[in-house]
């Protein structure tokens, strides 16, 4: 009797939770499930495939569990078979060692393929745009080396163009994440990492630091505005014409722990990003980024450093 009540209550609460999760879901705020670019899409495919493949195992397990517990419960008049000594079956063992091995084989190969693909630009034909990202306490500095402008806590990008984000930090390690566009990458002091992203649809996308950096961490959000290449170029022009430059002194000020709003700069000190990475002998992660080697060697030459590969 009591158990019946309990079961009903637990059923109600589980259904209620599910309903809340689902009804509040399926909107566009489920960034990861509604990617706005090819990188996020590839990652979503991995997410969905891994979910489907694991469901192949866990759904039968859960059904089997429910059935077994009901069928073999210890009741005096339970007529189900009882075989207390039965404890070995080679066939069954082969089945449940085998099935997971097959599933993980499939998922492993697919995972490897996508992991390698994501180190390449999402589109081969379009000329990529490079953005240098520096995480600071507690703000984001974005530099456009091609356009020679810089922004803080927001960035504009053209749609349909692969963006080559080169990432570092001049503060504790953070992680650069724009869930609508794709997965994240750490920003680490003394190192540079690369992340390819691309927006196919115009829109404003939420971004946030994903690795804890102290008391101002919750304020480290930024937004990415994707617009047509023409609009992007117009924006660059207007920034160059109207904003103030970021000076070396200005950067030193910016570097101090604080939270700020959106800022726009018409220029930045030359080599600021490289100097940040190489301050007191930073190192590029050469092995991992074959396509970055050109940048690395230029950097080495520029700084007269040749000796810093690990």
């Amino acid at each position, binding site marked *: 009797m009591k158990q019946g009540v309990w079961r009903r209550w637990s059923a109600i609460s*589980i259904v209620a939770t599910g309903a809340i999760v689902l009804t509040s879901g399926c909107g566009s*705020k489920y960034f990861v499930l509604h990617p706005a670019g090819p990188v996020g899409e590839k990652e979503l495919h991995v*997410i969905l495939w891994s979910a489907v493949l694991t469901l192949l195992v866990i759904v039968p397990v*859960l059904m089997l569990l429910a059935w077994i517990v009901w069928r073999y419960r*210890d009741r005096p008049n339970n007529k189900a078979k009882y075989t207390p000594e039965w404890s070995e079956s080679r066939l069954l063992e082969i089945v449940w*060692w085998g099935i*997971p091995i097959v599933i993980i084989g499939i998922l492993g190969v697919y995972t490897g393929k996508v992991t390698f693909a994501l180190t390449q630009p999402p589109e081969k034909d379009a000329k990529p745009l490079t953005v240098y990202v520096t995480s600071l306490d507690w703000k984001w500095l974005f530099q456009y080396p091609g356009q020679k402008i810089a922004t803080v806590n927001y960035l504009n990008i053209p749609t349909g163009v692969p963006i080559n984000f080169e990432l570092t930090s001049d503060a504790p390690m953070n*992680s650069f994440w724009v869930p609508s566009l794709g*997965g994240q990458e750490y920003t680490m002091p003394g190192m540079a990492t690369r992340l390819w992203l691309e927006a196919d649809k115009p829109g404003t996308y939420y971004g946030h630091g994903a690795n804890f950096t102290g*008391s101002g961490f919750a304020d480290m959000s930024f937004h990415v505005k994707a617009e047509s290449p023409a609009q992007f170029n117009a924006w660059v022009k207007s920034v160059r014409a109207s904003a103030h430059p970021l000076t070396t002194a200005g950067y030193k000020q910016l570097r101090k722990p604080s939270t700020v709003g959106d800022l726009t700069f018409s220029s930045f000190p030359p080599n600021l990003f490289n100097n940040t990475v190489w301050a007191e002998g930073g190192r590029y992660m050469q092995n991992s980024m074959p396509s970055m080697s050109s940048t690395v060697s230029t950097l080495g030459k520029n700084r007269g450093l040749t000796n810093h590969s690990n």
Partner: protein
Amino acid sequence: MSEALKHFADTYLMWNEGYLIWISDILIVLASIGIVAALTYFKKWKWLWRNWLTTVDHKKIGIMYLLAALLMFFRGGVDALLLRTQLAQPGEHFLSAEHYDQIFTTHGTIMILFMAMPFLFALFNIVVPLQIGARDVAFPYLNAISFWLFFFGAMIFNLSFVFGGSPDAGWTSYPPLTELGFDSGPGENYYLIGVQISGIGSMATGINFIATILKLRAPGMKLMRMPLFTWSTLASCIVIIFAFPALAIALALLTLDRIIGTDFFTMYHGGDPMMFINLFWVWGHPEVYIVVLPAFGVYSEVVATFTRKRIFGYSSMVASLMLIAVISYFVWAHHFFTMGAGADVNTFFAVASMMVGIPTGVKVFNWLFTMFRGRIRTTLPMLWTLGFIPNFAIGGATGIMLAAAPGDYQYHNSYFLIAHFHQMLIGGVVNGMLAGMYYWWPKMFGFTLNERLGKWAFWIFNIGFYICFMPQYALGFEGMQRRMYTYPTDMGWGSLNFVSTIGAYLMGIGFLFIVWQVLYSLRHMEKDTTGDPWDARTLEWSLPSPAPHYNFAVIPTISDRDVWWEAKEHHHTSDLLPKVDQIEDVHMPKNSARPFLLGLSFFVAGFGVIFNWYVLAFVGLAGIAACLIARALEDEEEYVLPAEEIVATEQSLGRV
């Protein structure tokens, strides 16, 4: 004078930080007064010292571990409720960013190192010697040292909240955030020293139980006749002795960075913060297997007992335990797929991590087929085990999803990850430890716990779990990061967070039911006079509950895997009872105050290091040296328990 006092109160006692500190201070003072008063009133000081603080008996050490684990469960749980209260709605100001950061750091550290670890050490201690037919562990004195190092490490860590400030950089303590330049207070030192001290104890426990299991088994108990809980202890201890040194090194180097200014993990001067992160997870990932393997062992014992059936696929179960132990060393980099290591490295660690799913999946199927064609009794240990399986299936599935590196780029450091590891650590480890506690409770204390209250606890805690953590998977897809102390309204995360907080409170209520259950059962005791209240299968149930302090009057000879079950089936349980003419004098280890004093010395030394008070540190180190020298000069560490006394005890228990 008053200025100096105010300075002290603000700097060390942090009285300027508000009511959370004041409440904690008041509670600590009241609890201390209460304990001292009770001990004095009931004249229990001597009893405390003789029977507990100086004991080397594995059963008593196990009980002290259990008590400590439950207390830390409470502390870590209160931390969790404070966090969830702060996150219940957007823009909440219940906690400041600084307090929130401290509390999530202490929550994580306490739950892993000062709740899960002592909980499993409690079960190792209480169960393993009884299961393999031993009179104690291989090194009882070292065992006591392990406990007191854990205890004083935990004390130091817990003190931080009210004296000088808690660590606030997460339980993972990544540099350079934890270097002096960004984190100058004593908080991070508390973390480094507290975890280091208890970690030394953990390594010693690992060594101790490997030696115990390999060398002290009763005659006839071949490795492949060992109960699966003992196997899981062996697997877990092997992982401990290979993994914990990496943590010890990482913590020691970071400590050097902070106290004498080296540059191992600093941002500049050639320091490499990623090296810490690698070392940390070289320990950190095996650590989760250290805590979950013994839980697997508990489930195996519980499932076999409460279905009255042999465990299905015993050899496969042993193989999968060992396989998990080995694979656990090849997966650590999945904690930082987003570090920018190459696709080759990420693919290797992704596939290795997925492979953990194979042996764990096998275990689940073996548990299911143990129940298949059995007779399932839904007692409390079995309920927690049944509750574990769906948790582990869902958590395992999300684990495989996380292991797929490109997917992880999106889940990393989001609430999806938080939901996943809580499902594994609560659904996997806490369920297992509680199942183990209920299962062996009568063996520890000689009475069973009230079933009705226990069922309330089980249902409230488990329903609370799903309400708390299922929404967090969704929050991850909505882009919510972990460790944000608050979030803006316009993100739309409010409703799911609110639901999650309700779930957390339900879990808290579930825990209170367990406390009520224990207190109720102490008053209305259902004594276990048989020694075998569950109709169980393994050797420990052939002993009276609780077992006499020498465990076995005569070490039995083992002829079967489920030796007690077989004896009952074939009506020769008397083979496992002692015969008067076989009972001989027994050498037992002597109690010693030194393990306690050694722990205390570590505490003093650690405290000195934390605040850079080197005189104090030196006093502590001198204490450590004195304890070690005294031990080295000791001649008689054992005493003889005469046969007559054993015979008398066994007669009073009706066993001879």
